[in-house]
């Protein structure tokens, strides 16, 4: 259901090729397998999206720190990064994040409108910083 919220409120509404989404599917509930991944990826279908499967919790554990999540892996989180941010030894701190059902602030609970605004803000900021570079790159 979260994937559809992202599709409807972010990808369907933002027609901009400067946006990329990376969807990590994995065993959040414990019993999912790689064969289940298409059951989820079908709900988020956009040429700007890439889909990955991880069978372990290593990655989502590494994503805990950047959003201040202490005692649970960072499943069902939505992390937004502006241009220029790089992933080094550890995942970077996002410019904005939302979550679904995690022990994080309630005001960061996934809401399609808020996520749309956060992504739009970063796209707008980038356009203002580098107007010449951006010209012609939009779809």
């Amino acid at each position: 259901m979260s994937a559809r919220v992202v599709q409807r409120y972010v990808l369907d509404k933002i027609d901009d090729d400067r946006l990329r989404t990376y969807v990590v599917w994995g065993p959040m509930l414990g019993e999912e397998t790689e064969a289940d991944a298409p059951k989820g990826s079908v709900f988020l279908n956009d040429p700007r999206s890439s889909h990955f499967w991880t069978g372990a919790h290593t990655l989502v554990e590494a994503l805990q720190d950047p959003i201040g999540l202490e005692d649970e892996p960072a499943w069902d989180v939505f992390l937004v990064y502006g241009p220029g941010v790089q992933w080094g030894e550890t995942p970077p701190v996002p410019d904005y994040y939302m979550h679904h059902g995690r022990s994080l602030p309630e005001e960061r609970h996934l809401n399609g409108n808020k996520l749309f605004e956060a992504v739009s803000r970063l796209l707008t900021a980038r356009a203002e910083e580098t107007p010449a570079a951006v010209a012609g790159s939009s779809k």
Partner: protein
Amino acid sequence: MHEVSEPQRPRSRRAMTLTPALVPALASALVLALLLGPTSQLAASDSGLEGIWKGMLVSKAAEVEAEILIEVGRTPEGDYAGTFDMPVQNYIFHPLDTISLEGSKVAFDFYRDSERRGKNARFAFEGELSEDGQKITGNVIDGDIRIPFHLTWTDPPGTPREEPTVPDVATMSDDGDKLRDAFNREQDHVRLVMTLSPT
């Protein structure tokens, strides 16, 4: 520039195209009619609900929403028969048990096991058909919970469904190597990373 118009619902009654997908629903409706006798005849004189209806269940706008689809046709005897889809819950062509239209009052229901209410729980749609016959709005009754829904008529019953495209999924090492590579390769973009369960 071409104007694209919304599909308009035909006002006249159409014969239902019998697709393989509707067979279980039709069989279900026929069995129901045989079991319950004449009282089970459901608004057979009115074509008002025939068609494919697409819309949403909205528990909380922009947060908890699900796309739904209801397809209603008629049995050869003229009774309504139909199915309910909610793809995110893997409900596809789930038979509707009863379908009725009285005046502008619309009702559908189906039975399904519920985590909250146990086996064979009843889920009922209660709604209102708009004057132009193009929309239904109302609530789904799930025990003591009411969830608003809205539906819009899109196509005649039996219209082939569009097959969804399933994007490829790349297998990563445990530390997320491919994600990190893509993230850094596209560092001049605004990037949204999400971690989800596929089920």
